[in-house]
Every structure is written in C-alpha cells, then in structure tokens.
C-alpha cells in the first residue's frame, strides 16, 4: 500500500485538486486491523520518508484503494506516523463526474441570467426610475386657450 502525500490548497469542494505539490511517498506499515476504505487509518514509519514533511501533509493518494484522501497525521509513541484519511470523492471520481449530465441551477457566470435569482443583492428600498417620454406631441395649448362651441 503506497501512499503519496501532497499539500493541497484547493477548496474541498473543488472537483480537481492541484496535486503538483508532492511531498513524498511512503509504504504503509502492515495494518493491525480492518481499514475502512472511505475513512482509512494507516501507519507509516517515520524513517522511511521525510517525516517532518509528511506530518504536515493534508492530502494523500492510496494506490491500493485508488482514492484520494484528505488526511490528518499524528505520531504515536513509537514515533510512527498515523495517517487518518477521509476520501475525497470529487477528486477520486473527477474524470467520471465530468461525464455526468446534470441540471445546473447555479453557475459561475459573469452576469445574471433570465432565471430569477432570489439571492441576488437587490436594494430593498432604492430603485431606478426611468422616464421615457413619447416623441410626438399633439398640438396642445400653443400658447393660448381654446374653446369649442357647438351650435346648430
């Protein structure tokens, strides 16, 4: 079970993480019990790798499980690194997810669309009042008064 350690700065809800910052890799020590694939806890010997770096890693890939994990590292009394992981299902299945059809109700567009957005911060009590005058005026007043008298 090889574990590759990374430092990732991407938001957890980013589909594909930037894993270019590789810290190192290590082989996990033989497990003493059952390992949960989604939330694994594995042990890595301190001396195998640069322990100072791994202890600060926040992301890992475990080849056996073929999954990426957000991890927390600790040290036990024997100075072994205890790696606790939580699967990153987004990164793990990014390739497949990208092929998924979906109905997207919000997206990072540059401007609003015609779909009403009740979260949009519209001012509650200020408005734009626009007056559009019509362009053809009948002959009103013309500077004098007008009376109409109808006789027979």
């Amino acid at each position: 079970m090889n574990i590759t350690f990374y430092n990732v700065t991407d938001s957890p809800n980013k589909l594909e993480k930037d894993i270019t910052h590789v810290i190192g890799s290590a082989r996990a020590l033989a497990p003493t019990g059952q390992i949960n694939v989604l939330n694994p806890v594995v042990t890595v010997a301190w001396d195998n790798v640069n322990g100072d770096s791994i202890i600060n890693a926040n992301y890992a890939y475990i080849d056996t499980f073929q999954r990426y994990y957000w991890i927390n590292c600790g040290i036990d009394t024997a100075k072994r690194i205890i790696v606790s992981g939580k699967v990153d299902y987004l990164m793990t299945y990014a390739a497949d997810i990208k092929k998924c059809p979906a109905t997207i109700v919000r997206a990072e567009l540059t401007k609003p669309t015609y779909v009403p957005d009740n979260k949009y911060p519209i001012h509650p009590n200020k408005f734009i009042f626009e007056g559009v005058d019509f362009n053809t005026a009948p002959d009103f007043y013309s500077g004098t008064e007008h009376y109409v008298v109808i006789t027979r």
Partner: protein
Amino acid sequence: MATKINPAYYGPEDSFVALSADIKRSTYSIGGLFTNGKYTGGSFDATAAPWGIGRSSASSDYEFIAQRDSTWTINKIQRSSLNTPLYLYYKSDLYMGANSNADFQGGDVTSENYERAMFRTRTSPDAANDNGTLRSTSSVDAGAAVGLANVLTNYPITSLNYQNVRLYIDHVYYKPAGESTIRKCTMNDIEADRVSVDRIVYFDCRLTYNTATGTTPNSTNVHLTIGGNSFDIPDIFKPVYYQESSSWTRPWRFLEHFGYWFIDENWYDQDSFRYGSTDYINYKSSWETLGNSDFVNANPVNVGWSTLSDIQQNFNGLVYHWESGLSVYASDQWNISEIQTGDTYASGTVRTYAYLVIDEKPDDMSSNEAYFAAVLHECAFLGFPIALNHISVTHSIGDNDIYLPVFDEHMITTGEYVSGPAALQLINAEWTDIFGVDMPEYDPTYEPEPEPEIEDYGDTSNLGSPRGIFPNGVNIYVMSGVEYNAFIAELNSYYANSTPDDWTLDFQGVNPADYILAAYYTPYNFAKSATQSNVQIGNITLTSTAYKLSQGEIGVDPPNKWKYFSYGTRQVKPLFNDFRDYEPYTKVELYLPLAGSIELETSFVMNHNITVEYYFDVMTMSGVSCVYRDNLLYKTSDFKLGAQLPVLSTNMGAIQNTIVQLESSQKANSMRLAAGALTAAGGIAATIATGGAALPAMVAAGTGALSLAGSVHKSDELNYQIEHTAPSVAQTGAAEPMNNFSVGQLMPKLIIKRPLMLSTLNNSIYGHTVGHACCINNLIGNMSGLTVCSKIDTSGIKATVEEIQAIKQAFANGVYV
C-alpha cells in the same frame, strides 16, 4: 411564409443569454457615416470630400472602412491595439440644426454651446427641411474639444438626442478615486466608484453625422478627440444606476457597453439616416446592390459571414469586451489579405474572413478545454459558424474543425454546436447567408408553428381603424379666449339694445340658448387650418367670429373615423438583459395625459414597441386612449379632452313671449274699446236721423272718445312693462371639472421602475461564491467555476453508495469545476 431571419440578430432575448462577458470581442467597431471633406470659405470642398462608413482611430484622425466616391470602395482596416480595453461606442443622437434649443431634451443648450461643440449648426433653420445656412466656421477647430466637454459636462450625453448627428465615445479613461494615474476603465469602475467626488473620466470622442440637406455631405469636423481634455462627471451623469432624471431617455444604451449594441439592427437601418421622407444616405441599399448582405458594416461581428468575391470586405470585428479578461479577439490577420473569394457557403465551404482567435487561456478559466468550450458556446449563441483557425476557415462543413450552431425548432440559437458530419444535418448547413437575409430562398421542409403569444394577434388587426359618426347638422367653432368672451357678450347684448320690435324681428323666434348645444374648454388646438367665419346660431349670424371646423378637421377621413392623434412609439428596453428586467423587479407604468396612469405587464411589453394613440369625439370631447403593444391593441383608457362650460345667455324666447302676451293683451283691450266707439258712432247717426232725439247718446259717444285716448296712454304703459320685464336667462350645459388640464404633463411617459443593486455587490465574487441562477443542462465537464446542480446523473461512476450520495450532496451545495 414568414421571412426567416437569423435569431442571433432578431431573436428574443433568450438568444443572448450567453452574451455575457465571457468573450472579449475584439478591438474594432464600426463607425457611422462621415466625411472628411472640409467646409471652408462658405463652400464645401467636394474634392476632399469622400464619404463613407468609417471608424475612429486612437489618433485624432479617422479613416474609412468603406468609402464612396463614384462607387463604393473598401479600404483596408488598420488594426489598432488588440488590448484596447474598451470601446464604449456610446451612441447618442445629437441635435443638429433644426428647430430650437428646446429640442435638446436635456435642457436649454444654447447655440453657443453646441457651436463650440462643433456641431455645425444652422442659422434660421427651416423646421421641416433643416436647410438653414451653416454657421460660421471660424470656431470649427478652436475649442472644439473644450466645447464638447462643456456640453457633456452640463448636459447628460444621453440627452443629446436628435437625428442625423451621432456622438461616439470611443474610449473612456478613468482616474479612480485616490489614484493619481489614469487608466482605461470599465463601466464597472465607474459604478464601483460612483460615490467618489474626484472622478475624472476622459472621453475619446468623435462625432459623425450625415447631411440633412442633400446627398452631398456639407459639413466637417466629423471626428474629434478630446482625450486631452478632462471634465468631472456631474451628478446628472453619474452612473446610469443613479440616473433618475426623466431626461435620461435611453439608459439602455449603456448595455452597449456590455457588448450588446451590435445586435440592435435599428442602428444602421436606413431609417436611421432618413430625414423627413428622404433617404439621404441609403448605404444599406448600396451594399445590397453590390450583393452584400444586410447590415454589412453595421455589424461588428462578422464571424462566419460571407460575401461575394468581387467585394473586398474587411471585418469590423467583435467588440472587445473589457469585462471578462478573456483573450479572445478578432484575428490578427485582419486585413484584405485574408479575404477569401469565390467560395460558396451553400456548397459546403465556410467563407469566413474574420474569426475568433483564442490567444491564451485566461487565468480564471480552469482549463483550455473549458475556455474553448465557453468560446464556442458564445459563438453558437450568436448563430455563427466557427472555424478553429485561419486555415480551417476554408474547410467544408462536415469537417471536424468546422462548428455550426444549433437552432431550436423556433430558429433560436441554443448555444449548442456541432461539428463533423453531424453539422451537415443542421438546417443552417445550407444557408446561403449566415445572417439569414437570404432566408426567403431557403425552403426548409420544417415550418415551425408561430408562437401564438408573439405573432398571433387574432382578429385585432382592424383595431387601428376605429369608426365613428360624424356629427352632421351642427357647426363646430373653435375660439380663443378673447373670441369666446366676445361671443358670450354678444349673446347677452341684444337684451339691452333691443326694442320690443327687435325682439320679434331680429331674433325671429330664436332663443340662442336653444341653439347652443355645448361649449367646452380644451387644451387641444384644433384651429391649425380651419377657416374663420361668423358664428351662426339658428338663423342668426352673429358678429362674433371663430374658426369653423370642417369635417376633415374633426375627423380623419370623415365620416368613417374619429378625430385622432398619435403620440408616437417608444420601446420598452431592458437594462440588465437578465431576470431583473422583469417583474417583480422591474415594473412598467404608462402615464396617459388626461387619462391617468396604467400599469403595463412587464413581461408583455419588455422589448416591444408601445404606441399611444388618442381617438375622441368632438361632440362630447370624450375619447379613448389606445395603447398598442407592437400592432396589438393592448389597453384602452377613457379620457376627456374638454371640460364643458355653462353658457348663460338671455332667454330671448321668454322675453319674446312676455312681449307678445303683453301686446296681445293690449290689443284685446283696444279691440273692446274700438267696439264701444263704433257703438257710440251709431248712436250719433241715429240721433241725426231722428232729429236730435238721440242727443243723450252723444254724450255717451264723447265718453267713448275719451276712452280711446285712454287706450293710447295704455300703450305707453305697455312699453313700460316691456322695458321693465325681468330678463330671463337660459343656461346650456353645466360646469365640469377640468383638473386634469392642470397637470402640466401632456405627453405620455413610460415610467420604468428598475431595481438597484446594493453597492456592495461584486458581481464576480457573487458568481464565484454563490453562483448566478441559471438552468443549464450540460455535462459537468463542460462547466467551469462554481456549479450547483439540482440533479446529476451519476451513472458510470464506480463508487460506493456513500460516495455517490456524497457526490450528489456536494453538487447540491456547489462544486468548483
């Protein structure tokens, strides 16, 4: 069959949903018509006066895209910096020449102002023909920029509104608050900094206008640059969102800043260059004669556009969009050398001369693929075919590097696009003209049903010809206040001047009040062409004069139509081009003079023409105002054009009856006395015959003579009675309220209430963190940035149930793709 048009230019707003700021739209824009000829020494230097369609450059010079001398020629376009951040191309019609200063909607711009602004005004212009004499050219050059700046400073540029002259502001430079440097800016900058007081905006302007008097342009200074001059933005010109002045007639023009303006076909249709009924520069026809498609040169987006081979056509490019930061712009091989000739689009060969070049992925795009997809998406919404590069533009439809937009069953672009053999299945694969102006030649087997709510107005087409009844047998007079007072005075003057005989002889039994049907006060001026005559009441012709209306002046084409006048047409323009343009965010009311305000259904009138026409009945001075949405009679409202006035006049009939009764009574008495006298005379004769035996009777006869004398005395008494008969007054009509007339606004006005965003809004951050509401059905991989899904089909993901649920939950909350 209805003419089919490319919905990219004519379609509903849905076609342009994706016309957001995702793509920069190049550096070139089209200019208006102008000339570089000089007007000096009182004459126009025709030799130096080619005219054509042009553009401005960054310098103080200008250049022609298309030029006309004896024939049209096309000039090469020099491409300026592709990095020009903003071509505002704000268009405002600017007053030129005619009428009075009042034509400036923004206020009383003095002639000095706009002469300084180098709008060559005319002295003593004729309102109809605008053919006054050009003003002195002495100040044409000097102070032009300052003058323009002055005008812009004191009057909002949107108020400079008239035919023929157009003001373009090409660049805007901006000094943000607290900064010492000046940089080219975006409207967002202005918006964000609108509360600042030290804002300085520099406009790089040019003016263009076409002549109003003939086919030969006779003016100059069609272009000027005031980049070196600056002016503070006055309050009245603060960003559109703060503009509440009624003089702000066309705030939607600011949409043009966002790259939308080129879809407005009204800009460059020939009516735009029509003055009165004459097309002075009908360049559109000229182009069409040469085989070009419509809107050539009017359309800055010429991607995928084809021309005939004998026309060397340059492309005016996509309006560079400053907002997105993306690097898509027109081809840098933007010149004549790129012109393709001889190809036929219908034969399956794409003939594009200008095309998008994806230069590099912008920072805010996750990947080149996503960026490219966004570009294609935008182009597809525009309805343009897309070639991947300048080599593939000559490839055929069906090749994998030629993309065609997909239209839905209503011929509206969807933003979808296909390439390869699938593109050959699209109906637009065989279009002979990408802009659709040749669509009548296109005979598809599929004929989409028209949208009833858009096109089917049922049987209302005859509503434009209302019918009424002309009031025959009456005289309708229009009087001024003085004339009306004289008329009333004359009606009451006969009493004082009349003798008993006058009553019966002059009025001949006429009681004037009975012959006056109604009198109204009205703000409407009928008397434009009516002829003046003496007022007639019954058989009496008064000395009072007034304008007597003929049938033609009472109704249009009488007797079939009512009196009518039109207030013209205005369009309800969107401001945001998104959901905010509709209820409940945007509401539209229409003020109707004399009738009040009515509410218009925003979704029904947005982007439609509103026409207001008034029809009224002169007899009752009541009418109905008709509000049309395009050609559909949409709403009506009653109004009163006149308030009835009470007319008090001496009741001649009553007086006459009194006189007749008195005189009849007097005559009856006289008759009785005369009978007595005759009896007495008989007695005298009898006395003579009897030899004096009847003498006593003579005494009686003498008594009868005395009685006759007494009857003469009674005639004086009759006159006395007549003269002291209390005058009776007759009243016609009763006073009506005329409060409506006190409202000074006698012009309909669309009142559009639009939402205002919180000043703290950052649209980019909002889109990034909250996401703009939308309804997009697509693959996740085609999206970029924050993506929130209501439903996602996770089929194909080899994950555990827990993971699948977690993926769905994540996309429900939002994932950055």
